[in-house]
């Protein structure tokens, strides 16, 4: 039982630390909720420290916050245009939330809430529905032309439209699965490799230890890249909704 509970999947278990229940709905405060809270607090601390003494020549932390701001702001502006800057706060929040969720999850004994498909799925579904609503609000029935670009020959359209419709509805699935799979795979790999360190002993254990070290570096990169990819794809979907083609 003890060995089983410390297998590579143990780290993903949800633990209800403060059981709560409202009208039959389970809203217990779990380890997942704690790390979501920590991600929020980490983001807030970063921005609080960064903007406490604002100077023309930025301090180190102010520089970090400014780089984040300009990075995400530039991403929104480049991919969606100035009309997309309305949604900059949302994209920025999304990026910081996932980024800190991924980073905090890399700490030993921590929990990675982005390794749970349901969390990513809720975010992805919200984005999918919001993008669709924005698209129809801005373009009305014209938004359907997203599935069939103007100038498509009719025979091609018979094949193109089903493909486009399918790719549109697969968006939330691919968006959430990508992040989920990356986080899951990375953490399982780390856990399995770490298990080999103990079983191979002090001498040969150095090999999996080096591998864990390398994979940890890789995972730090993946954590940042996946947050970026999630935000970037959101921008690209938003661009479809705002600028159509």
């Amino acid at each position, binding site marked *: 039982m003890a060995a089983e509970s410390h297998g590579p999947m143990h780290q993903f278990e*949800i633990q209800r630390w403060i059981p709560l229940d409202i009208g039959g709905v389970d809203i217990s405060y*779990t380890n997942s909720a704690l790390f979501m809270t920590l991600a929020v607090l980490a983001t807030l601390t970063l921005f609080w420290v960064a903007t406490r003494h604002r100077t023309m020549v930025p301090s180190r932390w102010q520089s970090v916050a400014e780089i984040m701001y300009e990075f995400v702001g530039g991403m929104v502006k480049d991919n969606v245009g100035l009309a997309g800057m309305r949604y900059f706060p949302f994209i920025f929040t999304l990026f910081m939330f996932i980024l800190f969720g991924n980073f905090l999850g890399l700490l030993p004994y921590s929990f990675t809430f982005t390794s749970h498909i*349901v969390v990513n799925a809720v975010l992805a579904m919200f984005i999918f529905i919001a993008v669709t609503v924005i698209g129809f609000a801005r373009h009305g029935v014209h938004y359907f032309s997203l599935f069939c670009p103007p100038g498509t020959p009719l025979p091609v359209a018979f094949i193109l439209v089903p493909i486009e419709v399918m790719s549109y509805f697969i968006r939330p699935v691919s968006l959430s699965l990508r992040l989920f799979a990356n986080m899951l795979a990375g953490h399982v790999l780390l856990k399995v490799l770490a298990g080999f360190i103990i079983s191979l002993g002090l001498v040969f254990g150095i090999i999996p230890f080096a591998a864990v070290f390398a994979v940890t570096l890789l995972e730090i990169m993946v954590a940042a890249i996946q947050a970026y990819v999630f935000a970037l794809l959101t921008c690209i979907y938003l661009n479809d909704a705002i600028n159509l083609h």
Partner: protein
Amino acid sequence: MPQFDPATFAPQIFWLVVTFIALYGVIAKFAIPRIGEILEQRARLVQDDLDRAAALKADTDAAIATYEKAMTSARNQARDVLLAATTELKKVADDKTAVVNAEVGKQIADAEARIEKAKADAMGSIKSIAADTAREAVARISGLTLDAGKIDAAVGAALKDAR
């Protein structure tokens, strides 16, 4: 896999919504305005500096243009002055040369006249000396005393031939 246990979905979704909305509120109302403000201020400061630099450059260009213009006009003026002075000097020199030339010409003419007169005088003297010499020579050689009119005529003819 713990990820596919539906019993864990509700608490995760609930806290996701709560924390995400909280973070959104703070980022939209606090972080973005504060960071945006300082970035804007910096951009404005840089723009102001650039504008001032551009204005200063325009001033410098204007000053250089004024200087160039002044230089050009001064140079032109100097050239005119120089030209006038040269012309003036040349005229004075020409005048003086003319006066001197006239003087020298007159002196040359006087001298030539004097020479001509001296020459004529000398010619006259030569004739009488020649006549005297001829008469003396005739008297010494033949002992004759010739008529002075004849000797003069003969000497005159001989001198005419020699000329």
